[in-house]
Each structure stands twice: as structure tokens, then as C-alpha cells.
């Protein structure tokens, strides 16, 4: 098969450009390489030595480091695709991935965009219109506005109608950016302005809308796959209730609350919503589920999700390869009844951030990296030892994904894998995951989107066993005994992160 593939190259793309960076660019390169498709990376100045540049077959410069001048520069990306003879572009997630102009420009340039068409993207990508589409498809939605908010007064009026607390959300949003929780009328004004400004910075679009805030809901989403011939399947749910700053940090499937019957109903609803706009390729329909197990359409993400690997682990389906085959024009090679779920999977998103200091970002050089491996462990990483995590982008370093035959094995394996993961030089949220996995509520599967707010306080991820502290003290002395007097040393590489730490003291509240 492989040999014949090579002899008959016309049955797949000749070259794929990945319009993204970090772990997702690496993920797409891996899928393409496994299919024998050469890859083109693009990079900003600070990403010249990024892992995706090192791993791709070709790499071309986009521009300066700020994303507006690089990964958001659509013209430049199309230009590079053309000059490098790439006949397809994968957008990854974030950046331009949900901008309908992207598929439109690709179409005009004769390049295949690996994702939905512009019209479906426009309709589902705009959160407000997506809510309308869901309503029309008779899928319940969270109460709120069906049009973008004009101004603060309108926001306040509607908030009073549907009742506090409410959420203000970016119409173009995703990933928790441009989202604000408003508990009382007095908080609305500043939240409205912050959300607008963050939305503008993240998506170049300051439109926001308003939704009722459900009390301790679960976030449960469904992966769908659709070909251009009207065939569509769902690949089951992912529960993403564990969030900090409205951004997912732990995801798992199956959801501990799911039943076969509810999965069938929610899966049907997801397919209905996606069908309503003629959706094609991979997408995700997000729902909130309340304590009565009633579900509400939240939004649709018209691209690959960060957390797609857990679905891959339980279904055995490589979603990126499916995306490429669907974009090439292949028919879905399986039907809904062929989709089987085996065991349980969980993902932890490893961020460069300080869990003891409000998850504040912590960029800098990675001095030492030990990644976990072994049975059931997958590390989708965008970093390497020596890499300097830049300040310009989302601080996601890698995704640690594990599979187990049931949730109990998965949790034990995740704890084991976390204990093997070592990243030094920058702060990460690794200790935070160890804390989560020790919580009774988490172990029992009692999850909700306010789990962290309800259960976590900054000191929690830092409980030092006293004997370990003694060991640490002795290790420090042992290390010092190998050096000269303490003022005679300090290499350049050592300095940068620690100086930064020093400067951050003003922000600490230990």
C-alpha cells in the first residue's frame, strides 16, 4: 500500500503548508509525514528555531514576532503557499483558523483549505449567528442575546432581563479570550470594556454578546466529521469542565456523567446543528449541561480543537488525517455505527504559567526537559530543551494525553506521567494538575466549569512534605559545595529566568 501510494502521488496533496506554530503545527506535520505529504512551516522572527520549523521539510519567514505581523498575515501566508507550491493549507487552531477570509482567499488562489467552507465558517464562527442557527435546528441554546451588543446600557438592560450572573463573550471568540464573568450590575461596565479590548486584541473584532451564566454547568462538546457528499458522523463527547480563566485545562472522554442515551441525543443535536449550515470537515459542537442533565448549545468551533487527541485515543481515528482526506475530497470511510469507543482518555494542557500566582504567564528558556512516555502516554509537545518560550503567543507548551482501559486506570496513569514530567527554567502548571488529580470531587467525577474557582487556592498546589524540604536544602548545599564562592558564578543561561523571577516578586502574594 505504501509503495503504491508512492507510485501514485495524485491521490493526495503534493505539499501541505501549516499556517500555525507550536504543538499544533508539529501535530499536523506528523500526520502529513505519516501520509507521505511534504510539509511547509511558516515562522515569525522569534520562532526561527521553533520545533515546527525544525521538523518541517521546508520553512519560510512570515515577518516580525507580533502575531499581527506574522501568523495573522493572510496575504503573506498565501504568497508563501504559492511560491513553495503547496496545494493545501492547514490552519491549526487560533490565529486565522476561524476567519472566513482564509478559505475564501485559498479558494481564489487555487489552494485547498483544510477545514469548512467560508459560508459555514462565517455562520458558525460568529457566535451570535451560530446561536440563531442552533435555534432554527431546534437545538436548545443558553438564554442570552441573539445580536451583538451595541453598548453598555443595552448590555445592562438585557442582563437585568435574563438575570445575573451573566457572561460577556467575544462574538468572534474561542479559548476563553474576550470572555468575562459578571456577577453584579456594578461589575458590568469594566467587564464589558475588558472583553471588548481583549476580543479586539485576540481576534481583531471587538463585538461581544451576552449569555446567562449557568450555575456550575458541565462543558461537554461533540466532535463531528463531515464529507462534502452529505455524510456526517459524531465521534462522541469530550468533557472539558475543568477550566481556569474560562480556558480548558483538563479534558476527558468519556464524560463521567455520560449515558449511552444522552450521548445519542447530544450527538444527534450536534450533527443537526452542523448539518444546518452545510458543514464539512472536522468541527466541534459545544454544549453546557446543567445539573438536571439538560443541555444547551454553546457554540461551534469550526476547526480542530486543542483537545482533539483524547477523541483519537478512544476511537483510534486520526483526526488530522481524516481532515486531510476529507479536504482532498474523499468520502467518509465509515458510518456512525462503525464508531466505537474503547476505554478512557484524559488530557492536561501544560502551560508556561505560575499556578501559585493567578496562572500568570511564565515565558523563558527551558533549561531541562524530561518528557514522560511508556504505556498509554502521548505527549503532543511544541518545545524542546533549550527552547525559549516566546512572550508573544499563547503559553501552551505541550499536551499530556493518557489512555487507560477505564477512568481509574487513566487517572493513575496521568499521575504517573505527571511525576515523570520535568520542565525546569520556567514555571509551569504541572503542580496544579497533581493537585487536581488528588481532589475527591475530581476522582468522583463531579466536574463543573467553576471547579477551580470553587476548590482551588494558590497555596494548594504547593504542599511541601517536610522531609522533601530537608532533602532540597541538602541538595542546595551539595550543589553549592561544587562551586566557588557564591558571588563568583552564574552562567548567562541561568540568569535570564531567575532575574525575571526576581522582578516578579512585586506580584507575589505568598
Amino acid at each position, binding site marked *: 500500500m505504501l509503495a503504491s501510494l508512492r507510485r501514485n502521488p495524485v491521490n493526495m496533496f503534493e505539499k501541505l503548508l501549516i499556517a500555525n506554530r507550536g504543538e499544533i503545527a508539529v501535530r499536523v506535520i506528523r500526520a502529513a509525514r505519516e501520509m507521505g505529504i511534504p510539509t511547509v512551516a511558516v515562522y515569525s522572527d522569534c520562532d526561527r528555531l521553533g520545533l515546527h520549523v525544525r521538523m518541517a521539510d521546508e520553512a519560510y519567514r512570515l515577518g516580525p514576532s507580533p502575531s499581527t505581523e506574522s501568523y495573522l498575515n493572510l496575504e503573506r501566508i498565501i504568497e508563501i503557499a504559492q511560491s513553495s507550491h503547496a496545494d493545501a493549507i492547514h490552519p491549526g487552531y487560533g490565529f486565522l483558523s476561524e476567519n472566513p477570509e482564509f478559505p475564501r482567499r485559498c479558494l481564489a488562489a487555487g489552494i485547498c483549505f483544510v477545514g469548512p467552507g467560508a459560508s459555514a465558517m462565517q455562520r458558525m464562527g460568529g457566535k451570535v449567528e451560530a446561536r440563531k442557527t442552533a435555534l432554527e435546528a431546534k437545538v436548545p441554546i443558553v438564554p442570552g442575546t441573539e445580536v451583538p451588543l451595541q453598548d453598555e446600557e443595552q448590555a445592562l438592560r438585557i442582563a437585568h432581563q435574563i438575570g445575573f450572573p451573566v457572561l460577556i463573550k467575544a462574538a468572534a471568540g474561542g479559548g476563553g*479570550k474576550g470572555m468575562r464573568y459578571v456577577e453584579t450590575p456594578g461589575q458590568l461596565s*469594566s467587564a464589558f470594556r*475588558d472583553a471588548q*479590548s*481583549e476580543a479586539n*486584541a*485576540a481576534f481583531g473584532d471587538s463585538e461581544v454578546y451576552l449569555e446567562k451564566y449557568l450555575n456550575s454547568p458541565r462543558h461537554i462538546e461533540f466532535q463531528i466529521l463531515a464529507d462534502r457528499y452529505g455524510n456526517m458522523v459524531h465521534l462522541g463527547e469530550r468533557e472539558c469542565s475543568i477550566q481556569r*480563566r474560562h480556558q480548558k485545562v483538563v479534558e476527558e472522554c468519556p464524560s463521567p456523567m455520560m449515558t449511552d442515551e444522552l450521548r445519542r441525543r447530544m450527538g444527534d443535536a450536534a450533527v443537526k446543528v452542523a448539518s444546518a449550515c452545510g458543514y464539512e470537515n472536522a468541527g466541534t459542537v459545544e454544549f453546557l449541561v446543567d445539573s438536571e442533565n439538560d443541555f444547551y448549545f454553546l457554540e461551534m468551533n469550526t476547526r480542530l480543537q486543542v483537545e482533539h487527541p483524547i477523541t483519537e485515543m478512544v476511537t483510534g481515528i486520526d483526526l488530522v488525517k481524516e481532515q486531510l482526506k476529507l479536504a482532498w475530497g474523499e468520502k467518509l470511510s465509515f458510518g456512525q455505527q462503525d464508531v466505537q469507543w474503547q476505554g478512557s482518555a484524559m488530557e492536561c494542557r501544560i502551560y508556561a504559567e505560575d499556578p501559585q500566582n*493567578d496562572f500568570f*504567564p511564565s*515565558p523563558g528558556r527551558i*533549561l*531541562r526537559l524530561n518528557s514522560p512516555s511508556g504505556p498509554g502516554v502521548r505527549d503532543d509537545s511544541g518545545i524542546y530543551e533549550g527552547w525559549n518560550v516566546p*512572550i*508573544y*503567543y*499563547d*503559553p501552551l507548551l505541550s499536551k499530556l494525553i493518557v489512555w487507560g482501559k477505564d477512568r481509574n486506570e487513566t487517572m493513575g496513569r496521568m499521575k504517573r506521567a*505527571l*511525576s515523570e*514530567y*520535568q520542565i*525546569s527554567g520556567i514555571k509551569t502548571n*504541572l*503542580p496544579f494538575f*497533581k493537585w487536581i488529580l488528588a481532589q475527591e470531587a475530581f476522582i468522583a467525577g463531579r466536574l463543573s466549569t467553576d471547579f477551580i474557582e470553587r476548590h482551588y487556592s494558590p497555596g494548594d498546589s*504547593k504542599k*511541601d512534605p517536610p522531609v*522533601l*524540604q*530537608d*532533602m*532540597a*536544602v*541538602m*541538595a*542546595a*548545599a*551539595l*550543589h*553549592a*559545595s*561544587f*562551586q566557588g*564562592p*557564591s*558571588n563568583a*558564578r*552564574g552562567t548567562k543561561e*541561568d540568569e535570564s529566568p*531567575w*532575574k*525575571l523571577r*526576581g*522582578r*516578579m516578586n*512585586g*506580584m*507575589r*502574594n505568598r
Partner: protein
Amino acid sequence: MTTTSHFKILINNVWESISIQRTTNLAQVSFRERQWCIDFGKLSENEFSLLVDGRSHDVTVHRLDDHSHVTIDGVGFDISLVDPKRFQSRLMRGDDASGPVSVSAPMPGKVVRLLVQEGDSVQAGQGVVVIEAMKMQNELRSPKSGKIEEVCVSENQAVNAGESLLVVK
């Protein structure tokens, strides 16, 4: 060959003594009125494998001046460690936090919103300024209770890493 070293270590605000006598793979440590025997191996300049009473620990140490950051079995510790000579001069210099303290930008970014004005009273831990960096808005907090002596920046201003944003006295 045996090397002997003495250090002062700050634990719960008390300076304690630690002495270490070592060969290339064994160390005798005196600390808190206890003797420890450590079988160690150097993995690199900053990494050790320790065996203490049979327990295996993997340790990474990064040191800058009097500050050592130790990661042991994945748990991080910040340790103040000085040799006795520097300890003397340090005691005489006196390190305390009663003077003005500035809140500075941890990385390049933009000031989104100022939450206080000059002259305001603040509590330790109270949010004082919101900056945007790495596509996230982050609230910086006052390191101590006191009065805002100076606000050095204005809203929407771009700031560099380390730049002083405001001063609390």
C-alpha cells in the same frame, strides 16, 4: 579527596547552619542536629541523583547569588543559601522590606487598566494594575500594604520587562 563546606540557610525566617563533607560520590551532611549520609551522583552541572537511606531522589538545582531553586522529585523549592562570609556582610547590610517597593512589568506588554491612583491606600495582595501579555490580561498585585506613592505609567502604554509601573510605600 574530601571537600568540606559550610553554609547558612534561611528556613522559616531563621538562619540555620549546614555543613557538608564530601568525596565525589558520598556526602556527610550535618544539619538540624542530625547527620545525613548521602550517596550521590552528578548527572550534569545542575543535576544530581541522591540516595538517602535508600530513598532515591532526582534533583535539579539552579543558583543565582544567594538564591537556589531546587526541584526535587518534581516539587520546587526556593532556598536562600549563603556561605558564612557573605552571611556576615548580609547581616550588617540588613535586608528588610519597610521601604518603598515598586511593582514592575514581568514581561513586555501593555497597560490595560490602572486600578489605583497616587495616594490610594492598598492592602497587600490587592490588584493595582492590569497588563496584557501573551494574549492574556493579568492583574498585578501590591506586594505590601501601604500607600501608592507614584504611578509611573498610563493606560494603553506599552511597557518593557522590568519597567517600574508604580511604587507602594
